[in-house]
């Protein structure tokens, strides 16, 4: 039972684009602005309903990629995965902005066997072998999801924020680690490296557990993929967007589901 529960949770996380109310995957750093010659931050990573309240399942730390200000990959240190969350440290040995990203991708299928709905997620190579021959209503999609957060040691820099050109990505106009309540912040959303126009982006402040509504802030990206958010108050915000298209790169998927989330800290004036 537990196993299948976990499995469906993962499936839910993977289909996040289609189920906005479902589980949210997030990473929260202990600090977004640090200074000194030898700073460290520790990061919590989990999937849950409430932000940022780990009560559901951890994010696998082998999916986490830390990009240092020089563009090189930095080490994920002291990684530990518990029942509800993962924890790891990042040693910020360089000045500038670090990107911490959990990237998930793969094939996702739903099908019916003997009238029962089943879900499958895995590598394309295993698809044919794992799906029973008599399966009906087989729907296969490819998914790319990115969950990111950012930490700046001293002055912000851009090298680590260069988009990979794959899937949905966010690039700053206002520095990610330079956000304050009462000051609108502008970002640009990219899809496969090009401006993603007309996509809905929502921002939700953390601590949802302690209020009665999500208080979601919804905006839509312009032609240039840009959007602005007005932070109503300070706090850790979860910024999320998703879309789907048919530009699949994996067979036999016919559609591609993409999602992007970032945890951003907004400081008081």
């Amino acid at each position: 039972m537990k196993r299948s529960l976990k499995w469906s949770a993962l499936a839910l996380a993977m289909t996040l684009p289609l189920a906005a109310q479902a589980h949210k995957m997030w990473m929260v750093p202990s600090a977004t602005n640090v200074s000194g010659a030898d700073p460290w931050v520790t990061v919590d990573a989990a999937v849950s309903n409430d932000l940022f309240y780990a009560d559901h399942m951890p994010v696998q730390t082998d999916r986490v990629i830390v990009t240092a200000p020089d563009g090189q990959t930095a080490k994920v240190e002291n990684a530990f995965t518990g029942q509800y969350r993962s924890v790891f440290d990042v040693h910020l040995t360089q000045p500038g902005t670090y990107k911490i990203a959990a990237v998930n991708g793969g094939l996702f299928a739903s099908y019916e066997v003997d009238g029962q709905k089943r879900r499958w997620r895995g590598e394309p190579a295993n698809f044919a072998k794992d799906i029973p021959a008599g399966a009906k209503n087989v729907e296969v999609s490819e998914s790319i999801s990115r969950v990111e957060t950012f930490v700046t040691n001293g002055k912000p820099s851009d090298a680590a924020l260069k988009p990979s050109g794959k899937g949905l990505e966010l690039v700053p106009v206002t520095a990610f680690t330079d956000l304050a309540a009462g000051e609108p912040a502008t970002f640009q959303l990219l899809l496969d490296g090009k401006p993603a126009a007309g996509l809905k982006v929502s921002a939700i402040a953390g601590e949802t557990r302690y209020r009665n509504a999500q208080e979601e802030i919804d905006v839509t990206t312009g032609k240039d993929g840009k959007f602005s958010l007005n932070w109503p108050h300070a706090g850790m915000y979860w910024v999320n967007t998703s879309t789907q298209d048919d530009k699949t790169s994996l067979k036999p998927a016919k559609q591609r589901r993409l999602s992007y989330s970032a945890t951003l800290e907004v400081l008081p004036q």
Partner: protein
Amino acid sequence: MRRLLFSMPALLLAAPAMAADLNVTVQIPQLDVAEYHRPYTAVWIEREDHTVAAQLAVWYAQKESKEGAGTKWLPELRQWWRRGGRDLQMPVDGVSGATRPAGDQKLSFHEGRAPLGALPAGKYELVVEAAREVGGREVVRVPFTWPASAPQQLDAKGSSELGAVKLDLAP
């Protein structure tokens, strides 16, 4: 010698006319709390677009402790940090110093001399930010126009981590 003595008062009189002064008093309040730490404090001048025109003072714990050197906590002065604190290499001569005790802390700055430097005529804000370990954080702003045409006394008051902030402008 007589000549020299005679010219000295003249020089003193002439001084204010050549270089305007900016005197700041920052009141650090006496707080009755279980665990008191002196505040980290930054004093700077902002242009109208919030860029920094001059960094005047930064007070922080200078000594290495088991929680790391004082510079580790400088980002807690959040506005100062993003407005330009992070661009500075600590310590900064004539700007950075040790934390100060409760009471009136007086600072004097002279036009043309570090750290004030040359301040072009215009509208500015004197900003004082204080943040205290296991305490609060507060920012107090005093808008002013530079240079003052007559001696001018401006002030603003904090409510928790800062007391009165006074700004005396001498033309």
